[in-house]
C-alpha cells in the first residue's frame, strides 16, 4: 500500500502543472485496510485529483481470507459510502474492465476527480512462486479450479473467436509471439552477468 499515496502525489503534480494526465494505482483487497489508503482517498477527493484507484480483490492477503480481515460488507460499498465515485465489477471480464476504466479515466481527465474500481478476481497460483498450492490448508483445489474456469484470457479468447474477430490461426500466432518474447527475456536473464560490486553503492544519494 506504500504506492497509493505516491500515485496521489503524481496526480497532484499533474493538477498543479495543469496537465491532462491521470495516475492509476493498482492495489489489493488488503491495502484498503491501511490508514494511508483512506488518507489518500480523503486528500484526492478534497483536491479533486485525477487518480484512479483499482482494487484487485482476489479475496486473499497472502493466505488470509478477507472474511477474517474486514467486516462483512463489500469493499466497494464502504468506499462508496465515504463519498468516492466507485464501481464494482467482474475483474475477469476484460471488456467490462476496459469499459468501466475507460469511463472513469476520461471523467478524471475532465476534472471530475478521483474514482475507485473494485475488480473481483482470484489468484490461481501461490502468493510468490510458480506452483499451485492447494495442498495447503487455506483453500481447496475445487475453489481454485472453479476460478481457473473464469480465467479472463480464456474468456476473451472465446469471445474473439465467437465474434470472428480472431481465428484459431490468430490465437496460435499470438501465443508464438508471446512465447518468443518470454524466451528472449529468459535468454537475456540467463546470459547476463551478475552486477559487479561497484554497483552496490550507486544511486544511494
Amino acid at each position: 500500500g506504500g504506492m497509493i499515496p505516491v500515485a496521489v502525489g503524481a496526480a497532484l503534480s499533474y493538477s498543479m502543472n495543469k496537465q491532462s494526465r491521470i495516475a492509476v494505482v493498482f492495489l489489493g483487497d488488503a491495502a484498503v485496510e491501511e490508514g494511508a489508503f483512506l488518507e489518500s482517498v480523503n486528500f484526492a477527493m478534497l483536491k479533486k485529483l485525477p487518480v484512479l484507484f483499482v482494487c484487485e480483490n482476489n479475496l486473499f492477503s497472502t493466505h488470509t481470507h478477507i472474511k477474517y480481515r474486514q467486516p462483512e460488507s463489500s469493499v466497494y460499498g464502504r468506499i462508496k459510502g465515504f463519498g468516492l465515485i466507485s464501481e464494482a465489477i467482474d475483474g475477469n471480464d476484460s471488456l467490462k474492465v476496459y469499459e468501466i476504466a475507460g469511463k472513469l479515466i476520461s471523467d478524471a481527465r475532465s476534472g471530475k476527480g478521483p474514482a475507485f474500481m473494485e475488480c473481483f478476481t482470484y489468484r490461481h497460483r501461490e502468493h510468490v512462486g510458480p506452483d499451485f498450492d492447494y495442498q495447503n490448508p487455506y483453500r481447496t483445489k475445487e475453489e481454485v479450479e472453479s476460478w481457473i474456469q473464469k480465467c479472463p484470457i480464456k474468456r476473451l479468447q472465446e469471445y474473439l473467436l465467437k465474434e470472428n474477430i480472431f481465428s484459431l490461426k490468430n490465437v496460435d500466432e499470438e501465443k508464438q509471439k508471446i512465447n518468443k518474447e518470454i524466451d528472449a527475456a529468459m535468454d537475456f536473464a540467463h546470459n547476463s552477468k551478475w552486477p559487479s560490486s561497484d554497483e552496490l553503492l550507486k544511486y544511494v544519494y
Partner: protein
Amino acid sequence: MSTKIVVKNREITYAEAISEALMQVMEKDEDVFVMGLGVTDYKGIFGTTVDLYKRFGSERVIETPASENALTGIAVGAAAFGKRPVFIHARNDFMFLALDQMINNASKWKYMYGGKSKVPFVVRGIVGKGWGQGPTHSQSLQSVFLHFPGLYVAMPSTPYDAKGILTYMLSSDVPSVMIEHRTLYNNKGVVPEELFDIEPGRARLLSKGKDITIVATSLMVQEAYKAYLALEKMGIELEVIDPRFLNPLDEDTIIRSVEKTGRLIVADTSWIRCGFSSEISSLVAEKAFKSLKAPIKRIGVVDCPSPVSKSLEDDFYPTYKTIFLESCKLLNKKPDLELIKDPIIDSFTGPY
C-alpha cells in the same frame, strides 16, 4: 552554487531566515511548494510560512489534513514527477507517522529505481522544548533519519545556517530533513540578503582550543559556546564544532580537532543511547584512537521521556553548566563553581 558571500550588517531571526530562504527560492523556482498541517493558519508554523501564504496563496502553500503518512507519500509522488515539495511538521514527534514513506520510499527511491527517478523533497521538523511540551511534543529525530542511508540531515543552529542550509536543500536532488529547534527561533544573527547556500560536509568551528573538542548539535551549540566562555576563565580551551549537516558529515574537521586536543565531548539534543552522540563517539574512537587521552563523553537528555513539570525539565535537559562540569572532570580539574552560579535564563520567552 558557491558564491562569495558579502555579509552586510543585517540581523534577522532564525525564523525570519527560514521564511526568507523559502520566499526567495519559491520566487525563482515555481516547482517548490509548501505543505503541512497549519501552514496557512495565522501562526504559520511559528512565523515561517505566514509571508509565503500571503505571497503565493493556497496554490503553493497547501494546508493539509491530519494524514502525515499518506501526505508524505503524496510528497514523494509529487517530487518523483517534477515538483519540489517542502513538508513541514510543527513537531518532530509527528514525523513518526511519516516514517514509512520517508524511509521505505523516499530514502531508497533513487536506489530502487536505478537512478531513473528521484525524490527531491525537503522535510522540516521543529523540536519543542520546555513550556510543558512533554514526552510527545519535544523529541528530536535526527538519529532515526541518520540511521538509514539515503537522506541528508541537517540541524542549523544559527539564522545564517538556517537560510544557507535550507536553500541548499531546496535545490538538491537528495531527499533532505532539516531539524529546527524552537528555542532558536527568536535568536538574531547576521544573514546575507541575497540567496546563498551552505554545502554539506562543512562543519563550523566556533572556537579554537587545545584542551577539549566538543561537537554539538542545534541548541547545544550555544550551550557549548557558553561553556567555552566560562572555561576560558579557568584557562581551559574548548574547541567548539557545529557539524551543521549531520549527513553528509564533516568527519575531517572532527578528527583533526581530536588529534589536536585528545579529548572529546559530544553534546546532542536527544538521548545518548543509539544517538548521534554515540555515532560520533564511535567514529572518533575508530579513527583517532591513538590521539585519545581520555574516554569520550556523550551529553544528552536524561534516559526517560521528557517530563512536563518545569522542575523536572530543568533536571532533564543538559545546559552549558553540564558541559562545563564534564569538561573539568575530563581534565581532572576542580570546577570553579562561581563561573556557573548564575541561574539559567531561557533565551526563549515565547509565546509558543
